[in-house]
């Protein structure tokens, strides 16, 4: 059986960045397995600009960003095997994968990084009543059809969900000549980045209906209309608020779910909220030597954050492989109140960053880190949005003061 020091699953921004970080940390035997025929992952279909301001200090398109990541590995001996799907992994890190070129292969890894991205929540998952005819697609699938294959899936479009892909596709379909009649969002606030609301909807006069959902899809073979209803505070449709739109396509942008079936099947602990694995500050999962980063760990709003997490993860994997001294002492970190989740969930006593999201928008609030009932750190925030990932730093010294597990919560600033 082939043995490799570090196997990275996925050659998107997270995987490529993890590879570079591990290489820079001295790991020389690195193999990236990528299911597509090219590196870049989902960036390849994100042909709009707006990527890279943090990492590369300039605004790039998705494919350009992917190219930069790949170029940075040019002078390394990191091995990239495209067209290869990882099918399973044992908890002893034996991966089974399949490709046209190499057939079915088993690879023994000493460390593994999962950077396998995420999938879109589908129509079935949200159970929209009505026809199950053609013309109902997730926004990402429509994006792929348009930007990779060059085909339009609709001419009059209603978009459900104000996730970033939905917003981007509202603009993209409009630019290609389609009429986007509306974007509807179940929640009273958008799930997309504020800049995307501005640049993709407002600038094109596309209405955003907050607190609305689709209550009926009509159409025998293809979508002919969709009905929007306003929802009450329990998110239940309100009678007599129906608005019917004659459309030929409905795009769904109703959430992303980390793709880590293989990790889960191998026995890694999965967090119910992020739906990614539970990790420590080096991105190591509950399986020894198995790491995760990027959208397979939790869904990010910016690819730059994926890149940065890939770096931490790659360094973590390298440290694991070189058996650098490892802190055994650790605490668990949990979310409370309006905090939806916090990562990592396990902290060793070292300087680290905690990443978190809120459940609902808040203004003038305090982010409070507690150990038991003891307040360790408090940070003022003018505005927090569910669509924006926030961070708070902790130091080794601070952690040494804690006697109990940590909780992160958000309260109003008094």
């Amino acid at each position, binding site marked *: 059986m082939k043995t490799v020091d570090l196997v990275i699953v996925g050659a998107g921004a997270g995987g490529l960045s993890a590879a570079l970080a591990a290489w820079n940390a001295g790991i020389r035997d690195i193999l990236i397995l990528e299911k597509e025929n090219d590196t870049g992952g989902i960036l390849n279909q994100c042909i709009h600009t707006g990527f890279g301001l943090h990492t590369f200090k300039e605004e790039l398109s998705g494919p350009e960003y992917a190219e930069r990541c790949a170029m940075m590995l040019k002078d390394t001996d990191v091995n990239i095997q495209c067209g290869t799907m990882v099918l399973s992994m044992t908890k002893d890190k034996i991966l089974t994968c399949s490709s046209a070129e190499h*057939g079915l292969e088993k690879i023994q890894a000493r460390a593994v990084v999962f950077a396998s991205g995420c999938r879109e929540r589908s129509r*079935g998952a949200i159970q929209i*009543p009505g026809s199950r*005819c*053609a013309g109902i697609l997730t926004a990402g699938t429509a994006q792929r059809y348009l930007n990779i*294959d060059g085909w339009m899936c609709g*001419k009059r479009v209603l978009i459900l969900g104000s996730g970033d892909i939905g917003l981007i596709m509202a603009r993209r379909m409009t630019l290609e000549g389609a009429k986007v009649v509306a974007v509807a969002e179940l929640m009273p606030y958008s799930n997309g980045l504020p800049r995307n609301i501005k640049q993709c909807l407002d600038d094109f006069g596309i209405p955003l209906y907050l607190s609305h959902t689709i*209550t009926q899809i009509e159409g025998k073979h293809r979508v002919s209309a969709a009905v929007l209803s306003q929802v009450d505070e329990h998110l239940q449709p309100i009678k007599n608020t129906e608005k019917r739109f004659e459309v030929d396509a409905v795009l769904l942008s109703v959430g992303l779910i980390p793709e880590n079936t293989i990790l889960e099947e191998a026995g890694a602990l999965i967090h119910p909220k992020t739906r990614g694995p539970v990790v420590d500050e080096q991105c190591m999962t509950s399986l020894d030597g198995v790491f995760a980063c990027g959208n397979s760990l939790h869904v990010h709003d910016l690819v730059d954050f994926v890149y940065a997490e890939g770096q931490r993860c790659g360094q973590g994997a390298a440290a694991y492989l070189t058996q650098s001294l490892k802190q055994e002492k650790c605490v668990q970190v949990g979310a409370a109140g309006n905090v939806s989740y916090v990562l990592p969930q396990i902290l060793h006593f070292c300087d680290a960053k905690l990443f978190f999201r809120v459940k609902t928008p808040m203004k003038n609030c305090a982010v409070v880190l507690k150990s038991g009932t003891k307040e360790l750190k408090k940070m003022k925030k003018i505005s927090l949005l569910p669509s924006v990932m926030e961070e708070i730093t902790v130091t080794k010294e601070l952690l040494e003061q804690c006697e109990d597990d940590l909780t992160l919560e958000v309260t109003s600033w008094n």
Partner: protein
Amino acid sequence: MKDVVIIGAGIIGCFLAYDLSKYDLKIAVVEKNMDVASGATKANSAIVHSGHDPKDGTLKALLNVRGSRMYEQICKDLNCHYEKIGAYVLACGAEEEDTLLQLAKQAENRNIPFEVHTHQEIVSREQNISDEVTKGLWLPSTAIITPWEVSCVLMDNAIERGTELHLNTEVTSIEKMNHGYRIVTSKGEMMSKVVINCAGVHADEVTAMVNPHPGFTITARRGEYFVLDHLKDPVVSIILFPVPSSKGKGVLLVPTIHHNLLLGPTSDPIDEKENVDSTKEGLAEVREKMHKLIKNVPMNQVVRTFSGNRPSGSTHDFVLEEDDLNPGFLICGAIESPGIASAPAISEYMIEHFVSKRLQLLNKNNLPALVLRQRLLSEMSDTERNDKISKDSRYGKIVCRCEQISEGEIVEAIHRNTPVLTLGAVKRRLRPGMGRCQGGFCEPLVLKILARELKLSLNEIVLEEAGSNVLLEKR
């Protein structure tokens, strides 16, 4: 001149084509949809019921018991999936227990294996059973199959033995001639000595083409379902039924062959026979009713909802007969539950009682070897799998991540005897699109493979029926 024209390629039409093609007959199957098994056969609970439930003296009782005993061997012969996982009928309270014991009596009279279990006994086997459940009727001979899989393989064999299959071909009128029938379709006409009407929800309308007063009418009863993803810890490992009511078998929980969990169905008569929309009310009803039987169902793992219309007959039994006015015009109508379970026995019954009276059934010489269900890579050893990949590298290229299906397998399925013309057909053959991403990743890839193999443009590929094109125009 054909000997037999079968109208409708649901599971009944497929069984008849399979059984009749063993004889020296000219057979054609006419199906208005783009794929076989695309009406009631594609959207049901996929259960081979043991036969305990139908009323004494009905065709349903007779043929369910018989069919249930035939399936295992048929599936074995064709390498189709069949799992005898067993079922519980669950009673909550004294009144339902009475009904349960009547069913037990019926099972006993029909020589169907059964046991009556207490709440404790049931819980020791299935820990998520609801606290309300007081007694259970255990029916170990109840099995699950994949109805469309069985139908496709039956049709593969019928075609191998010379049967013509005409998909996307709707029968518009039938005329009785001196020596048979003239069947006019959307794609031309054909003559046949015998016609077998297996037209599902439309069987009454098709009968009305030759008899202005058919002895039965069909109401479509919509059944809505949830499908849950493969679960790491399955909620149940066996089938759960409530005690039956006048509306049918009620809301069930059924583990499928592919380790999903089905919840449903409802049973609502609807006016439009082809309307298979999901409804808010229907899904809410399933959600509410299942709680009577089970707890801890992770509804956040729902990957899909679907609904199917079963042909419910005005006589409350299967209609299996030769039309009064039209010798050689045979009817398989009102095949609602337990239709799947009875299908092989229905075919046998029709041939024995009617077809054999109209046609001479001589065994075909040189019957070709059986065409088996396509063997999947996931069923092969690593060596076998690599052997397959070395002969055709497309077997190494995985197209569907969720269900781990390769391009080679898809191409193989497309070129089997039963045509694969739609994305839905690929999905029913091999499952790409049935997993947790619901085709989000693989649909564009499958669409391209299908277009390439069928030599069509991408925007000509449809989801199910003509007009359900996925893509509209080039940008």
